[in-house]
């Protein structure tokens, strides 16, 4: 092989290692390896000692037969995901997008910024605010209104209706992403379509129905899948606001796995529970990937020399 070609090849290999190497290492260590570990772990009996005693199927057996809390967690998860998704992440997000694009530009942008505040604040701060708002004694913001404006005794949302609290808390966060995506989609509808509809005699509602919504079909489906996955898997706000309680009343499936592992010390069981989520996650990720437009991302490069 002539010198030039050999040097090229060597540089090519170095380039590959130099540029892509670090990324590959990080991804392999923190994505691929954990998945494998999780699979293996699910079949062990690792407990508080963090030592592997034996390989066993009893985690799965426990899941299916003996774990009563699991059923509860599944039920809570179902209610939580469906309600938050249906009411906030998709519907309310759509509403916000429609309304903020129907009022003058600057006002719409202002209100969108307000609704981004929950998502943009640190989770601890956001959770703290919620705790203050639903504080059961008279100091809670909600109770101040309830007691002084409506003249009713203070209500304890946190203990009596914890599910409502976490649905609202996650809903505010969830609505903001959908709002952004839908707004962007609405803005990309050619203006002339709106003009034509108005000249044709359509009122605002008719325009929404015939011009806006048809253009949002794809973003809505994408958001629904994406947000379902997100709600299924994340538990940060629930952990911060109710801790999963009282007792296990607001413990969704993902939080249940976490608590079993880190609170009860049953790491193997937690891993087994997580495994189900991992599988769902992979399937959903593949589904989302199929929905996205791949061609633009895969444009071939134009220089072949190193």
């Amino acid at each position: 092989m002539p010198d030039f070609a050999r040097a090229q090849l060597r540089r090519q290999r170095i380039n590959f290692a130099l540029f892509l190497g670090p990324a590959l290492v990080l991804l392999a260590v923190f994505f691929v390896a954990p998945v494998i570990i999780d699979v293996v772990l699910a079949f062990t009996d690792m407990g508080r000692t963090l030592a592997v005693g034996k390989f066993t199927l009893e985690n799965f057996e426990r899941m299916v037969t003996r774990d009563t809390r699991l059923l509860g967690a599944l039920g809570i998860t179902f209610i939580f995901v469906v309600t938050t998704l249906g009411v906030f992440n998709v519907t309310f997000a759509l509403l916000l997008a429609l309304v903020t694009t129907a009022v003058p530009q600057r006002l719409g942008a202002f209100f969108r910024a307000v609704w981004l505040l929950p998502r943009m604040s640190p989770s601890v701060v956001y959770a703290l605010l919620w705790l203050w708002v639903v504080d059961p004694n008279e100091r809670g913001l909600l109770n101040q209104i309830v007691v002084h404006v409506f003249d009713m005794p203070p209500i304890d949302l946190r203990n009596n209706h914890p599910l409502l609290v976490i649905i609202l808390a996650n809903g505010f966060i969830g609505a903001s992403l959908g709002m952004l995506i839908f707004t962007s989609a609405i803005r990309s509808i050619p203006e002339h379509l709106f003009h034509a509809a108005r000249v044709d005699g359509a009122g605002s509602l008719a325009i929404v129905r015939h011009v806006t919504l048809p253009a949002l079909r794809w973003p809505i489906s994408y958001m629904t899948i994406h947000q379902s996955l997100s709600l299924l898997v994340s538990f940060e706000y629930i952990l911060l606001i109710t801790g999963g309680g009282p007792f296990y009343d607001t413990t969704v499936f993902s939080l249940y796995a976490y608590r079993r592992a880190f609170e009860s010390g049953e790491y193997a069981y937690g891993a087994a529970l997580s495994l189900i989520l991992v599988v769902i996650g992979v399937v959903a990720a593949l589904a989302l990937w199929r929905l996205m437009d791949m061609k633009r991302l895969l444009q071939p490069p134009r220089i072949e020399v190193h």
Partner: protein
Amino acid sequence: MATEHSIAVGTPAARPDWQALARRTWRTRFTGQSALLAFLVVVSVPIILPYFWMVVIAFTARTGGVGSDVLWTACAVIVPAVLVYSLVHMSVASRRLRLATGLILLAITGTLLVALVGERLHLNNFRFLWRADFVEELRSKATSGAQFPSVWRAFFNSLALAVSQTVIILTVASLAGYYISRFAFRGRNAFLQGLLVLHAFPAMTLIIPIFLMLYWIGLLDTIIGVMLVLAAIELPFYVFVMKGFFDGVPWDIEMSAMTDGATRRQAFRLVVLPQVRVGLIAVAVFAFIRAWEEYIFVRTFLIENTNWVMSLYLFWVADDVMGVDYGIVAAVAVFYVLPSLLLYVFCQKYLTQMTIGGIKG
């Protein structure tokens, strides 16, 4: 054509009453817009109010009480001012008049606020910044868990975590993004698709095995461990973002660098990288803020209370002190939020440039 007269337009019925139509137009437009605005205000109040409350408490509350009269007074002053201004804004078209009204209202609100609540403002709630023992002082007994460190320790830990994580991400994502964008290699398509799947895949599900992995490597309970995890989890996203920026650099620049005698590596360092400065800044700011606000990984992996970061600090202060002194907790929260808020505000134009495959982030 026989059809001509059946379609012949003729005068559509009688001549329409243009006056009535004009009136109706104005009416529907006004009520429509007002209704929409009212809706937006109503749903936004539950968000604005708590944040405002937090700021107010941070500057006015005293130990033992959480007087919200300051809050309501402030609201009572501000809300009418805003209402008046919006009415003026909607009915008057002249910009100068609107500006004048705005300034007058601002002045009135300002003086009213100062007069009514000015004396209640104090900075005592921020004493955690200069006193490390404020928790013991409040509770007059030992706190649950270990001694509370100074807030500055947590602050610098958070800073270290955020900065180092950002540096790692910038380096790795730029290198990888550039390579994917500019080089042909076997498995490029597969890699891109894999990256996309990883991006959509929820990394939270892996928290348990990652915990164990860190334990086995020996990085559990270290800032370094958290830093690596954070960098890796977000990497797919940032690689795509950087790729997007590199895609936007014209090929000609690189080609001319290479005909000028540079190797690809040199072309990258000397010519291409400067072109994506905007992208680098955007990614840096975004990554920094993300790490600054991180809670769950930090909480799970920093198990002993020796390594503190701001998010944990705030959490434990709230846990210990909240029943007794809202003010301090609010003050800590305000202090915590300030850096990310400032970054958002000042770097906004960079952040909006981020796209992933054409979909703006």
